[in-house]
C-alpha cells in the first residue's frame, strides 16, 4: 500500500492529469446527450464503419442494374397513378354582358407545366380542343392575365405566358383609360414593362393596370398589375414604367380560358371594313 502511494507521489504529474482528465470526461458525458449516446456506440461504430465502407465500394459495381430496375419500376408505378388518366369533365359557363353585347365563355383548366426562369416561357394546360379550347383564346386566373393560347391538341393546350419576351398585351390605366402595351423583358418574373404611355399622362405609383379589351382576346377590365416604378427621359416622349404583375407565375395552378363568342363576328366586320377601304 505504501509503495502504491509512493508510486503515485512520484508520478503525481501523470496522475493529476489523469484525475482531471477523468473529471473532464465525466462532465462531457453527463452534460451532452449527443455525446452520451455516441459514447455507448462509438466502439462498435468504428468497426461497423470500416465494413460499411468496403460494402459501399462493392455496391458501385451493381449500380447500373439497380438503376435499370428502379427505372422500370418507376414507369410501371407512374402509369398506375391518377395523373396518368385524363379527366374529361368540362365545366364551362357563359356570361351575357348586356351592356357591351359581348359574351364570354370561361373554361376551367389546370396548369400541368409552367416555367418562369426562361426568356420564352410557355404554359401547358390539361384541356384542349375537345373541351372547346382554340388558338388565340386568352388565359386568366383569379388574380389576372396569364397568357394566350398558341397551340391546341385534342387533350392539351399550350399558352404563351405573359412572361415571354414575344408577348404583348393591350392594357390601359383603370382610372384614366390611357392605353399602352405591356411586355416582359426577360429578367424579373414579378415585373413587366408598360410602353407607349405618353409624357402628358398623369398617374401615380400603385395605379392599377387592366386589359383594354380592344384585342378581343381578353374581356375588358381584367387585372394585369400595378405601377411599381416609373421614370422618364426628357428626350423621349414615353414613360418607362415598371409594372408589378398581379399574378404570381411561380405558383400558377388553376386557370380559366376565355372564349370570346363575338370574336368572329367582330373580326369579320373589321376585315370587311378594311377591304372596303
Amino acid at each position, binding site marked *: 500500500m505504501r509503495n502504491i502511494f509512493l508510486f503515485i507521489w512520484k508520478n503525481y504529474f501523470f496522475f493529476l492529469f489523469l484525475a482531471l482528465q477523468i473529471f473532464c470526461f465525466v*462532465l462531457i458525458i*453527463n452534460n451532452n446527450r449527443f455525446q452520451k449516446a455516441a459514447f455507448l456506440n462509438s466502439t462498435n461504430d468504428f468497426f461497423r464503419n470500416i465494413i460499411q465502407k468496403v460494402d459501399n465500394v462493392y455496391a458501385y459495381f451493381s449500380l447500373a442494374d439497380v438503376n435499370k430496375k428502379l427505372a422500370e419500376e418507376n414507369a410501371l408505378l407512374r402509369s398506375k397513378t391518377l395523373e396518368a388518366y385524363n379527366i374529361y369533365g368540362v365545366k364551362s359557363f357563359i356570361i351575357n354582358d348586356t351592356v357591351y353585347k359581348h359574351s364570354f365563355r370561361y373554361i376551367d383548366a389546370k396548369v400541368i407545366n409552367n416555367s418562369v426562369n426562361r426568356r420564352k416561357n410557355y404554359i401547358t394546360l390539361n384541356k384542349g380542343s375537345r373541351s372547346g379550347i382554340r388558338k388565340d383564346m386568352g388565359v386568366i386566373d383569379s388574380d389576372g392575365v396569364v397568357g394566350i393560347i398558341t397551340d391546341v391538341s385534342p387533350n392539351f393546350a399550350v399558352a404563351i405566358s405573359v412572361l415571354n419576351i414575344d408577348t404583348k398585351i393591350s392594357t390601359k390605366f383603370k382610372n384614366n383609360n390611357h392605353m399602352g402595351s405591356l411586355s416582359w423583358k426577360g429578367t424579373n418574373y414579378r415585373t413587366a414593362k408598360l410602353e407607349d404611355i405618353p409624357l402628358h399622362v398623369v398617374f401615380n405609383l400603385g395605379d392599377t393596370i387592366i386589359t383594354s379589351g380592344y384585342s378581343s382576346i381578353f374581356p375588358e377590365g381584367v387585372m394585369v398589375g400595378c405601377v411599381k416604378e416609373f421614370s422618364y427621359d426628357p428626350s423621349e416622349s414615353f414613360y418607362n414604367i415598371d409594372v408589378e404583375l398581379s399574378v404570381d407565375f411561380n405558383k400558377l395552378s388553376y386557370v380559366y380560358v376565355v372564349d370570346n363568342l363575338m370574336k368572329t363576328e367582330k373580326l369579320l366586320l373589321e376585315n370587311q371594313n378594311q377591304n372596303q377601304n
Partner: protein
Amino acid sequence: MIIIRHIIRFIILIALQVFILNKVQFSGYINPYLYILFIILLPFETPKWLLLILGFLLGLTVDFFVQTPGMHASASLFMAFIRPFVIASVSSKREYEQGIQPVIQDLGLNWFLTYASILTVAHHTLLFLIEAFHFNEFFITIGRVLISSIFTLLLIVITQYLFYKPKRNIVTGKI
C-alpha cells in the same frame, strides 16, 4: 508583478476568444482558438502541477462561456500535460538560461513555431475529436484540425509581434 501580468493575460485572452473569435464565423471549418496562447506563454519555471491546474481552469472557463462542459477543459488540460515533454524535445541552446520566456523575441521564430505548432495541433486534435465524438468523419475532422491550427498559429504569431518589443538584453529580459 509577473503573476498579475499572467492573470490579466488570462482574462484578456478568454474575453478575446469568447466575445470576438467565437462570434466570427470565417466559414464552417475555421475556428481559431487563440486562448491557448496563455499556456504557451507560461514561464518555463512554472511548477508542473500548477501547469495542469491552470490548463484545466483555462479550458473550464472557456467551457462555461461556450456551454460545452469539459470539452475545452479536456483539450487544454492535455495540452498543458504535454507541454513539458514538448519543451524537452524541442531543444534550444538558451532554453535553461534564467529569465528566458517562451516567446519569439527570446528564442527565435523557428523554436517558437515548432513549440507552438505541436501544442496547437495537439489541443485542436483533441478538441475536434471530442466535439465530433466518433471516427465516422475522421478525415473531415482532421481537415478542420489542420485549417484551424494554421489560423490559430497565425494569430499567435501576430500577437507576439504586436505585443512584444524586440529586446537587446536577453538575459535580463522579463515579460
